[in-house]
């Protein structure tokens, strides 16, 4: 059985429990054990722009906790993945390691840090996922949104393709749904700019919502709570600002996968989706 330490970060356990719930239930269905990390904190990313070293030390502490549990780490948020991966690299740099040690922390063995979705792709694999699907979502048209820190920077991750990513599309197709090819797939959601300039951030989010609308997507699939904040929580703002009506549901990938594995709506937390995916459920049911 595959065992991993699950790093939740700040947003997921408080604001996106449906993401966490569906990830845990999908993991169980695929024979993956997720072990919680006692004492885990914020990943540190919010402090990176203020002081990179502070952010890296906060991140290093979190992966040290997983290291002490002798487990590799999976994360649910793209930015957590990037921050913890940065720290994992820094822990091999002598000066950083000595600062880390001065704080009384220990890192007994090197741990791998990966996004939960990357783990699904690499360790479970498309074939096994396809075999586990009980209810293929054959009629759905899904638009996969990767977010930035899932595969960029490529020198940090060495995974997927920074310009033309494909792994999430493959994972969407494994559920039986269609994964739409579309322009500007790697466009940023704008989440990092939201606190600095809302107008710019909403304009960025609107770009992809508009593409989803034009392509007749039944839903957008996200793998990061910040991207979901932009596309789901701020969809009304984008509609008001640009005089459009979208009404596009935004599902976390484990929610979509969970439905195809035969987990019911409660098991993937559908009632917590702000834009109700009723049309998706109708399509699946018929």
């Amino acid at each position: 059985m595959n065992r991993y330490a699950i790093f939740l970060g700040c947003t997921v356990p408080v604001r996106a429990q449906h993401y966490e719930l569906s990830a845990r239930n999908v993991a169980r269905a695929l024979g993956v054990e997720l072990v919680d990390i006692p004492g885990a904190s914020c990943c540190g990313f919010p402090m990176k722009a203020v002081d990179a070293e502070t952010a890296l030390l906060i991140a290093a502490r979190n992966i040290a906790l997983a290291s002490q549990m002798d487990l590799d780490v999976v994360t649910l948020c793209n930015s957590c993945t990037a921050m913890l991966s940065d720290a994992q690299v820094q822990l091999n740099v002598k000066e950083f390691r000595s600062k880390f040690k001065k704080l009384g922390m220990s890192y007994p063995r090197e741990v791998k840090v990966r996004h939960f979705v990357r783990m699904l792709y690499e360790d479970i694999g498309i074939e096994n996922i396809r075999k586990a699907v009980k209810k293929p979502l054959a009629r759905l048209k899904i638009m996969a949104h990767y977010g930035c820190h899932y595969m960029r920077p490529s020198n940090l991750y060495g995974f997927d393709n920074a310009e033309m990513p494909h792994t999430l599309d493959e994972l969407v197709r494994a559920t039986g749904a269609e994964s739409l090819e579309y322009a500007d797939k790697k466009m940023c959601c704008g989440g990092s700019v939201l606190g600095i300039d809302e107008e710019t951030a909403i304009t960025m989010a609107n770009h992809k919502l508009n593409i989803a609308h034009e392509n007749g997507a039944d839903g957008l699939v996200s793998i990061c709570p910040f991207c979901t904040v932009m596309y789901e929580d701020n969809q009304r703002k984008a509609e008001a600002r640009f005089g459009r009506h979208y009404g596009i549901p935004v599902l976390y990938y484990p929610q979509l996968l969970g439905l195809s594995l035969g987990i019911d709506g409660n098991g993937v937390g559908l009632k917590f989706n702000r834009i109700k995916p009723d049309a998706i459920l109708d399509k699946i049911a018929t």
Partner: protein
Amino acid sequence: MIDLKESDPQFKWEIVKKEGGEGLLKCFGCSDCAASCPVRYFNENYNPRKIIRLTLLGLKDRVLTSPFLWFCAHCHACTERCPQGIRVAELINAIKNYAVDQGYCPEGYKMQLDLLLKMGRLYEVEDFDLKKRQRLGLPAIDKTIPDVARILEYTGILKVLQK
């Protein structure tokens, strides 16, 4: 207008010393970063190339006081395309870190720092949240993680809150 009398020749060396700033001097101004930038695509006031050129020219005040320094989404589209191999997003981040050192920290970041100091996480975990988690069969989580405050004290970053 650029007046080089305002130039601080030390500025670029200060940035080079910072984590992520090491690639600054390699920039030859090709503008691939600006052409790849999704923020610039929608808001032309943000231009990573311009920030890097002004930094190389030593125009410290113009860089540090510009609100647009903070528009970088850290998405790494530029990093992927820089023909000089500069980690452009990390370079911009190094300039942000320097700006904070010099007393230019956006209020939003100060608020986040304050939350991390108090709780070790950005969102308060209320009893309501814990009950909701319990109802969903999700494990309990810590309301506060005091070790984070220890790290913040150690690196000296809390001085930002006093300014």
